[in-house]
């Protein structure tokens, strides 16, 4: 999956069996990650981006990535920062020392949510069984990220490739989200 965004960061969890493996769409659990909720004012963004290793996007619903870092726009003063698990402490000290006394909040939320990768030509179709967002590539190009609802559960969706999405939900909602995705995919088998 090397053609996908943040390919050394968003990796399938080798210890977990695939949740779904159809020819047209598959669902894989994502290996654990360091996740941060970062909030700050405009004046601090440049420094924070330098410390984190990737600039923080200011354009709504976009992301900035390197192989091992991802900064996702969540709101006008809020970002989700992703890094490999082993870099957790480095990110905290890096941003903390660079920003010093400038008002900001950097919170470790690594265990708050879980993620799955939905890939395949029917990936967007499958997400649209529960998400009321136009996922065509014109309006939702690669790199687009947003919070929204999947049926009744709040989720974050992030397009990391033309046919690949990361779907993140809070831990206690993931069985509901993944379960409904798998159930909806049965329609593809039936067709």
């Amino acid at each position, binding site marked *: 999956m090397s053609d996908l965004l943040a390919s050394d960061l968003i990796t399938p969890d080798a210890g977990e069996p695939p949740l779904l493996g159809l020819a047209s769409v598959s669902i894989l659990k994502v290996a654990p990650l360091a996740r941060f909720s970062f909030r700050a004012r405009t004046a601090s963004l440049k420094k924070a981006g330098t410390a984190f290793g990737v600039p923080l996007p200011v354009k*709504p*619903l976009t992301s900035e990535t390197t192989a091992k870092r991802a900064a996702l726009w*969540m*709101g*006008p003063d*809020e970002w989700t920062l992703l890094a490999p698990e082993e870099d957790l402490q480095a990110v905290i000290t890096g941003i903390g020392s660079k920003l010093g006394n400038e008002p900001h909040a950097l919170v470790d939320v690594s265990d708050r949510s879980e993620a799955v990768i939905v890939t395949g030509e029917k990936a967007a179709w499958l997400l649209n069984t529960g998400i*009321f*967002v136009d996922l065509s590539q014109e309006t939702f190009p690669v790199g687009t990220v*947003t*919070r*929204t*609802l999947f049926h009744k559960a*709040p989720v974050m969706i992030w397009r990391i490739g033309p046919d690949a999405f990361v779907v993140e939900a809070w831990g206690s909602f993931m069985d509901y989200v993944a379960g409904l995705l798998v159930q909806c995919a049965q329609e593809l088998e039936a067709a």
Partner: protein
Amino acid sequence: MLLIYCPYCEIERAETEFRCGGEAHIARPSDPEKTTDDDWVEFLYMRSNTKGIAAERWRHIHGCGRFFNAVRDTVSDEFLKIYKTGEAKPDLEALAREAGK
């Protein structure tokens, strides 16, 4: 389904992503010590409950999470104007005239 424009995400989204936060432009008493009980009641509970063109707070709770303000016709559900928190309250009568209401 109603589509609502979020001024922070700069996109229209389904109403299920939003919550209405009640009447907009209600200022909290600036000096609580000197505020009378009647004024607190006015601030906390009394709302104009307009039938027609009203300015409301809305929150994109299942999106960017931000509050913004919107002028909505409470009869037809039509949104006439959407603006960011902190921007001045628009002239509701002018908006109503423009919309032919």
